[in-house]
């Protein structure tokens, strides 16, 4: 009880301190943004309006599809400067001083919320809610050997993307497509390359890093190769290729169950 009392007493003092220390904040034209409804509550009309605002205000730097340009990609599903929905709502209103303009003045609270909801929907958009059985999906994940290449909750081999919180980044439609046609949209950092050294066998794998003089390739066996570009006769980027096998042969029920399981993964936090 004593702790609670102390905290209550301390609060006004803290407010004064913040106002004094950050005069810019004290006279900012933005009241502290309060997210009153979760972004997931957005109706299709909200998303449509959010997209219109996005096209006018955000597409210039973040790409019309959110894939990035002058600004970073918004398709990773997690934002370096906004840990949660409230943070995203604040970001589109206030911006980042000296880096990104805020649009709170122009949009007002309602349209800012619609804009944030659209940005949030960009990675998870597409298609109906999964119909599969989550518990069965977990069994499929284990039985079909997904852990051979993916980490989930700390278990498995790190070759493909970590799936621990994949449901935060990808919606059911994307996940289903990724299972049926893995090459349709290769995730960032998983470009497939073939490097042909002047002597020795060609190396095919995922490009871990590449600059003008060096390339690092992880082959399907997990081995990391450090190669000097000058020692290669060819370094071929395989646009639209993926090292993940396609799972079109899964029985339809298993596929839906797996999608449902993956779409529900929200991480350990």
């Amino acid at each position, binding site marked *: 009880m004593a702790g609670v009392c102390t905290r209550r007493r301390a609060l006004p003092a803290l407010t004064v301190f913040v106002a004094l220390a950050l005069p810019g904040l004290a006279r900012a034209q933005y009241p502290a943004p309060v997210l009153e409804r979760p972004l997931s509550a957005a109706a299709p009309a909200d998303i449509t309006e959010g997209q219109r605002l996005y096209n006018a205000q955000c597409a210039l730097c973040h790409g019309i*599809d959110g894939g990035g340009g002058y600004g970073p990609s918004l398709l990773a599903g997690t934002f370096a400067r906004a840990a949660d929905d409230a943070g995203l709502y604040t970001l589109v209103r206030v911006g980042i001083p*000296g880096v990104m303009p805020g649009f709170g003045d122009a949009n007002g609270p309602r349209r800012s919320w619609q804009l944030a909801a659209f940005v949030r929907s960009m990675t998870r958009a597409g298609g109906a809610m999964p119909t599969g059985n989550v518990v069965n999906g977990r069994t499929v994940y284990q039985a079909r050997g997904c852990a051979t290449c993916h980490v989930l909750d700390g278990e498995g081999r790190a070759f493909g993307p970590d799936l621990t919180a994949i449901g935060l980044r990808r919606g059911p439609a994307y996940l289903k497509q990724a299972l049926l046609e893995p090459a349709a949209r290769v995730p960032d950092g998983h470009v497939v390359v073939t490097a042909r050294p002047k002597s020795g066998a060609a190396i095919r794998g995922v490009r871990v890093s590449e600059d003008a003089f060096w390339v690092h390739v992880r082959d399907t066996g997990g081995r990391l190769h450090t190669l000097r570009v000058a020692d290669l006769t060819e370094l071929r980027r395989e646009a639209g290729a993926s090292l993940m096998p396609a799972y079109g042969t899964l029985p339809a029920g298993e596929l839906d169950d797996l999608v449902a399981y993956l779409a529900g993964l929200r991480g350990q936090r």
Partner: protein
Amino acid sequence: MRRLAMAVAVTALSGAVLSGQVPYQRLVDAAKTPGDWLTYNGGYFGHRHSTLAQITTANVAGLVPAWIYQVAGNGQMETSAIVADGIMYVTEPPTTVTALDPKNGRPIWSYVRPMPSNLRLIGFPATNRGVAILDDKVFVGSLDGALIALDAQTGAVRWEVPVADNGTGHSITMAPLAVKEKVIVGISGGEAGIRGFVDAYDAKTGKLAWRTYTVPAAGEPGVETWAGESWKTGAGATWLTGSYDPALNLLYWGTGNPGPDWNGDVRKGDNLYTSSVLALDADTGKMKWHFQYTPHDVHDWDANQIQVLADLTIDGRPRQTLITANRNAFYYVLDRVTGEFLHAAPYAKQTWAKGIDPKGRPRVIEGTEPTPEGNLVYPSLQGSTNWPSPSYSPQTGLFYVPVREMGSYYYKTDVEYEPGQPFTGGGERRLADEAWGAVRALDARTGAKVWDFLLPSPSWSGVLSTAGGLVFSGSNEGNFYALDAKSGAPLWQFQVGGMVRSNPTTFLVDGRQHVSVAAGRAVFMFALPAR
């Protein structure tokens, strides 16, 4: 009197360093005094070529860092250093000028300009590309739209003038150009529906000497190339440093895209003088001629690239030319006296034009404009090259250009002008996975490719060539490197640990050739080991 006494004291304190007197004639002769680096591109002709030859193809492999200066702030380092009389002037984001001792990288003074909390940067990062120097002052444009004159020795503010209102999206990122007794400055804001202009200010007082708009107003010639009142938000920003021919007394200034960028329906017509080069009388700002590279541009292909001035033999005849690699993927040769179109050729992948006709007008392929569904066109929105400086070497006759090989799906959306808000009408979806880059050497007379040095991603680094037979440039992945200027073979590289998105420079420090580049959030200085 008191001020004079202080100035004398400062000069005395600075010891061996001469007071920073850089009269106009030194700028005219900059290419002949390669120990300094006195203008943005090392001389009015924009060659970014140095006649220094201490560092050569034979010894460049021994190049090592001399020092690294790290900056504190956020934002993007795009500065191009000015070096005069033993002081190196660099800029840092957002609008900070720092004078460094080029011997050891220690700061002598800094001018830090606080930015308003509601600063508007519409379509570009918080950055600054450098200062201009004239007499005893250095000049910097600010992100909030001002031009500031600083004492070159101490950093004291001598004067400051508002150039344009940041509330309507105006901003300055470019390095000004000092010519005669004036400071010439352009403006950013091409994605905010501004009306572009080039300004000249009296270097001593800051008084506006002239302003030339890049978009004609009602009643002026050229306004008929704008439907209705669309000229009012016609953009044509002037956000990169121009070139100057002292003998002709002409400034050559590139202009940016028309506004809105990707929806041309609301501004039918050629949209003069956007995506063009303007030849302006340096005394009056009067336009002597113009040449429009991309009439009715709908892809955001600004002509804000360096307009390089070179004397070349074209078709057996000596010509005073203007040569440039444009964002639209074509290399152009113009007569810089008259503006006459002489030649053009594609230098990178493009899918929008069948070629350039004998008058210099592109033969646009139908169906290459942005659409609501997206339309794949090469090059991408950022173009086949962008603001990073190319280099022209009179020694090799080659034009070295940082190349961006990338395509984009271009989208068109509805658009409405709101002051201080983006006014673009669409956007792009980049084909980033298959994109790549290069330093490409072109025959300066024809634009024909001579060699490529390949890069993993589209380049944002300028190029420097030297009489040591070298070409210096950088990569997004942090490589800073030297190539053989004749063959493109790599001879040296250093991993700087951050993106190289600036222009290299070279000069003498205590009689020894040094090479400098900004990368990541630092300035790097390289030299051969002292004997």
